[in-house]
């Protein structure tokens, strides 16, 4: 075996490689952590240490002024993924009992009114979110609000579990001849409107969004109009208001009609 020692600065390979690597590191540290932060024209650095911290990505408070508070109640629903495991049988049972008071409008006798949504088979997250929003008055309705005020957290989870446990009811006016209109299939990218189907069914579903297949066209249309006028504003980060405002009246009709015609 060669007696040549490797880990010593007398070995030219060791000295050169460690030296070059060290020099590269030092050089890029100086440029990246000192020169570049100072070169940024919009930086408000208080000194060298501040420059180094900002380049290292140390979190710093940037906004000092107060944020504007809205004049209305906003949705404060926080959904976590524990809520959406397989429904627990006892929760479903309690939900079934509680749902007796809902049946007059959201009937499990398959005679929901055209101005109320069908809840059978809706994702638990969607039902829970709306109940919670009605309770805190982020969403208001002369009939629903008084019901929701009385519900506690567990009641809302139980009702959500119950409705998600029921099989989705078939649409009242299925019409396979109606194909997905442009707004549903692809949205309107030029107006920043994503496809309805990317959250509400056919293509994909998102946490907390309702499934629209087979819902009443009148109900869908009324909600889109309410979002557009701002009469309804419990959508998180104004997602639906921004979409509905950008939709034409014809697109609202098409989308409502399409989802109502789904089986």
């Amino acid at each position, binding site marked *: 075996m060669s007696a040549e020692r490797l880990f010593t600065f007398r070995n030219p*390979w060791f000295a050169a490689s460690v030296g070059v690597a060290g020099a590269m590191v030092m050089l*890029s540290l100086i440029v990246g952590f000192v020169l570049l932060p100072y070169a940024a024209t919009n930086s408000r650095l208080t000194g060298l240490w501040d420059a180094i911290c*900002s380049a*290292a*990505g140390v979190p710093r408070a940037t906004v000092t002024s107060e944020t504007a508070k809205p004049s209305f109640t906003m949705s404060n629903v926080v959904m976590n993924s524990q809520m959406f495991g397989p429904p627990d049988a006892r929760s479903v049972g309690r939900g079934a009992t509680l749902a007796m008071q809902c049946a007059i409008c959201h009937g499990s006798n398959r005679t929901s009114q055209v101005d109320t949504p069908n809840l059978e088979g809706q994702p638990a997250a969607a039902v829970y979110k709306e109940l919670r929003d009605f309770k805190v008055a982020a969403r208001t309705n002369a009939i629903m609000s008084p019901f929701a005020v009385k519900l506690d957290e567990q009641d809302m989870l139980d009702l959500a579990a119950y409705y*998600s446990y029921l099989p989705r009811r078939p649409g009242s006016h299925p019409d396979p001849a109606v194909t*997905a209109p442009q707004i549903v299939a692809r949205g309107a*990218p030029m107006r920043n409107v994503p496809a309805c189907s990317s959250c509400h069914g056919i293509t994909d579903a998102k946490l907390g969004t309702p499934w629209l297949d087979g819902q009443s066209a009148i109900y869908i249309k009324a909600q889109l109009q309410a979002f557009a006028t701002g009469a309804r504003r419990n959508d998180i980060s104004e997602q639906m208001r921004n979409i509905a405002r950008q939709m034409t009246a014809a697109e609202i009709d098409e989308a409502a009609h399409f989802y109502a015609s789904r089986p």
Partner: protein
Amino acid sequence: MLNSKRLVLAHFWLAFVVFGLALLLGEWQMFVRSPLNPWISNSELYYRSVTAHGSAMGYVFPTLIAMGFGYAITELALKRPLIGRRWAWAGLALVAVGAVTAMIPVSLGLASILYTFYPPMIGNPFYYIGVVLVVVGSWIWVALMSINMATWKRDNPGKPVPLAMFANVAGAYLWAWTAVGAAIEVIVLILPVALGLKTTIDAGLSRVFFSWTLHAIVYFWLMPTYIAYYTIFPRAVGGRLYSDAMARIAFILFVVVAMPIGVHHLFADPQVGAGFKFIQSVFTAIVALPTLVTIFTICASAELAGRLRGGRGPFGWIAALPWDNPMMLAVTFSFVMLGFGGAGGLINMSYQLDASIHNTQWITGHFHLIFAGAIVIMYFAIAYDLWPHLTGRALNSVRLMRAQLWLWFVGMIVTTFPWHYVGILGMPRRMASYDYADPAIAPQALSVSISVFGGLLLVISGCLFFAVLIRGHRAPQMDPGEYRFSVAVHEPVRVPVALNGFALWLTLMIGLTVVNYGYPIAQLLALNGNAVPAVYVGAAR
């Protein structure tokens, strides 16, 4: 001397079968999101396919090639039987079981999260377990390569480790270290969430760990290709390797700087400070060095071959090269694609230039040109070169081989050039459908359609590749003679200790990792409130 023929063949065949299936999925994806197909109404199917394609092509296929080729190199270069052949079979079994375990939930639509995982999306735990099994199987290979080289060195004190084995072990060590990032991400961060023990995940930290793996994995894929450049190509074209020492230095540079540079994949991510992005950008620039060294050395080796074959003058040697030789064609095509892909890579690593192409189809075009183009075409060439020694039968379909390589080259150019172009136009990646009727993106329709036809050429080339190999298995038996690697112009009699082992280089690699990744990871670990709710893919809706 190749004792473990069945072992190597099993690796190669499993790799190529996986490759063939994933190739078909890739072309299907190209088609469904092109204007030639109206609209894939269920985009989940698209993401399912992308996940299968990426996992198979990224994790299973190149890993098996590196493993199989590594076992072959061990026996052919060290001229002694592989130590730990049973372990090697166990490693292969783990990779196979892992691939199946991962693909079942993917095909059921329970893990459509793409092969890069993308937390907070969380798929079925069996997907991650499968990927971990594939990696564990490959770590057996890493250990075997290390043991085989160490034993040989002990028995041959002072002698230089044959270049092919040296490079092979470089690839193994690089993979061992680079896989650690994704392994930590999957085992510590993702699996507890996938198994339902936690419901939130620190997506930013996960992405930092994945970036640890994401860049150097490409160099792991690249290793067999570079080994073929240095140790097969000069012999195959009738020349000599220009410099053994330069080859060793190139592989050492890959080991040292290929890994601590992954943050350039996170230029648009907020959780890493700009200073660390800069330092990793600098080191990314350095990783271009070993590739430039390689291009120089291999072109010089080709010039030697051309002159030995009677070429004269400044360019006459190029005409004198054996252009009908599949290895000559493959290396040429590989270099052309590496040149364009490398130029694109320099754009990606530049902070400001990256901003205009980040997350666009440019990126997908880029890594297909480098991996599926420059790297995979050499996998074909390696198979062509080794097959007679593995099967004891000649590969006689030389015209078919040439047609296959030409088709792969042309197909890859036709696929990826328009792909880059639409990326510059701003077409985002990872989308299942585009509305080409929209005036804003209508100009992209033609380019995307051209890409689909490029993909078709690739499928045809893939079929030809299988035809060549299968015809090889049916050819009459013959004696392929002794397998030889390239010989250097100046054969190394003894090399410095630094160029005959990895102790120094692994120390530098780990040291640079600590410098470049230590603080960003420690900071994210120390901060509270980074976790976001997991989004379970394929959960009941």
